[in-house]
Every structure is written in structure tokens, then in C-alpha cells.
């Protein structure tokens, strides 16, 4: 991978934060279609999430450590994409995706379940032994999530705000490598968050493009910068399905190269609700 092109990729971002935003003037009717499309996107991802979780948990129950390890990151991606909606169900989000830091007793806490509890077993303890109850619980929770989301009326503010929220996720826990500290598969989650954010931006872009083309241009360039940087760490540059190298392989310099465009995206996308009058 070439450092020169990495730096180039990271150098296109820029932000004029001192600008005074214009008063939003968006007809609420125009939000209906992108919200509906977003719901389809979420349901499609949930569908995939359920089927991948089935394979993942079956591998654990079958005691197939290697297969379970291999399926861990590709399964999580679907959840990471739709976090703005998934997080609306706080109880499920805690049991599916909490980290040991969320519990005073850490890994030993009996309430600590879900992906990161399994991650600790699969990657730190290197075993599936005794993890069947966690696997079964995860499957139950994921099925529960799917049925709850199907019945959900998507709140527009939550959907639009999700674009920024996903970038905040990246800035807070992905760049530091603390999300997947045992599997070091952070780049998968990173890509999932970025994909989810970009999807929301793309859906609502037509509503802001005319009024603020510079904003759209800047956001697109920064997404492209992040995408280019991520591509350097894929096993196959143009194939996200092929997966990523371990986050341990990402140098300090390159981690910093992520911070610039991610922070500018977080600042910019935080104005999307304002631009749409939400």
C-alpha cells in the first residue's frame, strides 16, 4: 500500500465552519420518500443480519472455533450500518452490542452478553466452550430486533441525525481500536458505520444539493477520502466482502489520517438536520 496516495486521499477535506447556515425551507412531504427508502435499506440489512447471525451462532454451538472467528466481523457489519435505528431499542442494543467497559465488573459481569462477550471467548480465550447460552441469547435478541423494527415508524429526525451519529461512532470508538479489541476487526465496523452514514446522506442529498452545493461537494470528497483510506487496508482493494487486515496493522500515522476526514464529516453531517428543518 502506498503512503503517498494515502496522504493524498486524506488531504482533500476542508470545512468552513464559520459560515452562517441558511434558514431551512424544506417541505416535509419531500421527506416521505427518502424515509421509506431508508426503511427498506434497514430491513434489507436486518434480513442479512439475521441470516448471518444464524450461521455465526450455529458455528459456536457446533464448537467450530475457526468458523465462528471468521464469521464474527462479517456478521456485525449489518448491525453497524443500521445503528441509528437499532439503538432506538436500548435494551436490545445493550444485550447485543455492549462492551465490557459498560459494566463495572467487566467481562465477569453476568449481564455482559452479545457480540463482545462472544468476541472475548473466541479471540481472547480462543474457545467456544460454554458459549452456547450466549449464542442462543444473541439469536433471540437479533430476531426480536427484526420484528420490532418491522413495526417501527421511522422518526425522520432520528434517521437524518443518524448520518452524523454514525460518524460520531467512528470518531469515538473505531479510530482508537477499542471496539473490537480482541478480534482487531475494527475496520469492518468502521466500514459498516461509514456505509450507513453515506446511505443516509445519499438519500437526502437531493433535498440540500440545490441550496448548498459546496456542502454536498465537501461531504462527498470526505466520504471518498475515508473510502480510499479504507481501501488500502482491504485484502482486495475493490472488494469490501474480502475483508480487512487487523487494526493492529494500521500505523499511528495512518490512524491519524482517518481522524481528519472523519471529524470534518461529523461536523458537517451534524448540520444535516438543520438544513432539512428537522
Amino acid at each position, binding site marked *: 500500500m502506498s503512503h503517498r496516495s494515502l496522504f493524498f486521499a486524506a*488531504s482533500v477535506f476542508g470545512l468552513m465552519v464559520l459560515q452562517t447556515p441558511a434558514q431551512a425551507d424544506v417541505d416535509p412531504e419531500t421527506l416521505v420518500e427518502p424515509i421509506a427508502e431508508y426503511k427498506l435499506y434497514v430491513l434489507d440489512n436486518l434480513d442479512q443480519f439475521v441470516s448471518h447471525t444464524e450461521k455465526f451462532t450455529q458455528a459456536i454451538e457446533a464448537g467450530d472455533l475457526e468458523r465462528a472467528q471468521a464469521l464474527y466481523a462479517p456478521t456485525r457489519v449489518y448491525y453497524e450500518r443500521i445503528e441509528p435505528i437499532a439503538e432506538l431499542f436500548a435494551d436490545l442494543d445493550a444485550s447485543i452490542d455492549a462492551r465490557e467497559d459498560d459494566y463495572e465488573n467487566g467481562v465477569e459481569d453476568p449481564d455482559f452478553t452479545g457480540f463482545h462477550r462472544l468476541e472475548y471467548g473466541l479471540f481472547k480465550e480462543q474457545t467456544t466452550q460454554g458459549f452456547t447460552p450466549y449464542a442462543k441469547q444473541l439469536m433471540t435478541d437479533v430476531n426480536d430486533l427484526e420484528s420490532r423494527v418491522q413495526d417501527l415508524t421511522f422518526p425522520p429526525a432520528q434517521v437524518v441525525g443518524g448520518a452524523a451519529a454514525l460518524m460520531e461512532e467512528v470518531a469515538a470508538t473505531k479510530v482508537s481500536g477499542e471496539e473490537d479489541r480482541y478480534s482487531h476487526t475494527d475496520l469492518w465496523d468502521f466500514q459498516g458505520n461509514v456505509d450507513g452514514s453515506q446511505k443516509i446522506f445519499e438519500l437526502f442529498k437531493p433535498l440540500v444539493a440545490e441550496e448548498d452545493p459546496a456542502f454536498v461537494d465537501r461531504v462527498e470528497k470526505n466520504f471518498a477520502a475515508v473510502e480510499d483510506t479504507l481501501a488500502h487496508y482491504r485484502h482486495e482493494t475493490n472488494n469490501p466482502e474480502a475483508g480487512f487486515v487487523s487494526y493492529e496493522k494500521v500505523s499511528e500515522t495512518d490512524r491519524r489520517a482517518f*481522524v481528519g476526514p472523519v471529524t470534518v464529516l461529523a*461536523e458537517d453531517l451534524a448540520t444535516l438536520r438543520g438544513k432539512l428543518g428537522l
Partner: protein
Amino acid sequence: MSDLSDNTPRCPFTLDRRRFLQGLGAAGAAAGLGGSAWAESRTDATSSHDVTGAPVSTTTQQSHPFHGRHQQGILTPRPATGMVVVCDVLARDRAGLERLLRILTERIAFLTQGGTYPKRDPSYPPADSGILGPTIAPDALTVTVSLGASVFDERFGLADAKPKHLQRMTGFPNDALEPTRCHGDLSLQICANTHDTTIHALRDIIKQTPGLLMVRWKQEGTVPVMPPSPDTPTPSARNYLGFRDGTANPNTDDDALMDSLIWTGDDPDEPNWARGGSYQVVRIIRNFVERWDRAQLAEQEAIFGRRKESGAPLSGGSEYDKPNYNDDADGKITPLDAHIRLANPRTPGFEKHRILRRPFNYSNGVEANGQLDMGLLFIVYQADLEAGFITVQKRLNGEPLEEYIKPVGGGYFFTLPGAIDEHDFLGRTLLEATETDV
């Protein structure tokens, strides 16, 4: 157990509110700060709101000029709080660096003079953190921008313009440097009368520089506030070892002395753009305070070479009297390895090694062993890094004080010359000096 509080002696500094406010009001008026208005409006307040009513200060309108040949925050009298924030520059080219320097200049000019933030449509994030309200007072804020040696690498084409002595800090024998608290591209020294003013300034700068700056490490500090003293010069503030610190600083009212000791410019080997700047050294020096508090007073005083209570040199007199080493060649009065004697032996020709100290005390929490993590946020300025800090610190290597201190972080930086007026920006001379025609 429940009697514990009754057995605890009352804090001797607890005054009743009226006396406290009157005293402060008088002090404020004496200093010409017009502090009586708030004193009148507050002393009679007895409502329950008093519990959470904002503490008042007579000094929020103090301000230091931003524009000038030199940056503020060096010769400026040190206020009660300060922090050093060291960042890496994320900008990847000269245009990005220039944008960063222009934004920093614009923000510092605003923050240090105070003003009102623009209002925004509430569906947008607000323009400011708001922690000081919609209108901010200067509160003696200064922000001082300095560059580390790493900025002069290949990224910005500045390599040929690096100040002669600027280098990456290397560890001294007693150091235990932690990589996460060392070095960096750009340092911000932020000082103000109150801690929240420094925090506000930092959050404003972070908010306005996304994609350009990333905080690498930060250390906050304070100095103890004293009641007004009739003594001139004012006694030096004390460090967390209980000793007065900074006594031997060169006289900052002496312009010629400052030009030779603090401001870079006279040395023909220094790049011309650096004229009016200064070398900044930052060191995070942990103090082992529990152990220090168990050391006998005589040993503490011998280690420093000063009386703890008055700050006077062991050779006699008062704080600002020059120590007498001439009649003490074998160190019977002031040990030869006393801190102040090593740091400044007062020998002919040593004047050129003098440095300007402007430190703060820090307190961070608790170590795994239950001991307090606190010490000195050491900040010094000098015209020549080699002749200044590096020479002095080499002389201090092995001093008895080392048993009680451990430097764990810091870095060397070059403080940019000032922005001379509102059309100028910090770092302009550096960028101009390195422009290439393509």
C-alpha cells in the same frame, strides 16, 4: 464514625461570605477594577439560589493585547490557571497549514478580547459550547502558539527554515518519558484567571479546526492564589513541594535583557523569520509529594538552597536577594548540589544561560499505589534552547531533588513571533520565508 465531621477542625480559611466579599471588593477597587458593583449586589443576597449562584470575580474583564511583535503569554503576568495542549497537525499541505494558522489567529484574537457569539437557527448545532454564556469575557486569557520540530519535516516544505536549535526532546537521565505525553507538531499554551475560561478557549479552537488539528496530549495546571501583598516585587507562587518557584527569573521589564535572553533574533544563524519568537520548553515533572512531606525540613531546604517559608536563599536576606556563594566555596551554607546553585551558579558569564520560568502545578488523580499523581507543569522560554534549558538541565542531572521528582512528558517547541496587526497571522513570516516559485 458519624462524629468524624465534628472532630475535624474547621478549615482555617473559611471566612463568612460577607467578610470574604468585602475583602475582595476592597482588593478589586484598590486594583482599579471597579469591583464594588457586584459586591453590593451580592452581599445581601440570602435566597436559596445562593447555593448554586455563580461564584463572582472582579477580574473577568482583564485582557491582554493580542497583536504585537511578540505573542502574549510569555512576559504576560502568569494568571491562576494554565494548560498546555499539544496537537498534531492533520493538514497535509501548505494551504491547509496556512488555513489552520489563520483560523487560530482569528479565534485567539476573538477569545482573548471577548465578545458575543452569533445566534443560530436552533435546528443547527450552536456556534459555541456556551459554557461561558453567549457573551464571553476575556478573563485575562492568553493563547500562545508554538511549533514542534516535527512540523519542519517534509509535509509543508518548511525544512530549510527550522530554527537552529529546535529539536525533538531527548530524555535526561532522571526522565521516564511516556510516549503519549511527549512531543507534537503544535503546542497551545492557554492561560486565564479561571480554569473554565481556558477550557472554553480550547473547545472553541477544537470546534473551529476539524480536520486540521488533533489533540495529542494535554496538561492542565494552577498556581495558588494569594491575598494582595504590600511587598514588591510580589512573592513568587509556590510549587507542590511548598517552595517558591521562579524567584531568579530575569527582569521582564528590562527590554534589552528580554531581547538577549528571551526573544530569538540577535543570533545571525537563526532564520530571519523567527525574529521575535522564543524557544518554549514544556516538561511534566511528577512530584513524589507523600515522600517529600515526610522529608525533614532541613533536608528540603538544603535540596533547594532556599528557606521554605520565605523563599530566601540559605545565605540570608529575603526572597529576591542574590544568594552569596562567594564566601561559601565548599558549600557549607548552600550545598554545592542545591537546586538553585546548580541551576544558576551566579558565576561571571552565566547570565546568558538564564531562562524565563512560567510554570503551573498539576494534579491528575491517583497512581496504582495510592499516591497522588501531581507535580509541576514546567514551562520555560529562552532565546536559545541550547544555552538555556538544555545547559541548565544538564547541570541539574544527578541533583538530590531527583529522588523526589520524575519528568514523564513534555517537548521542545518554537513560539512563533507575534501577529503585528489585524491583517497579520501567526506563522506568516515562516510561510513567506519558505515560499517557492513553481
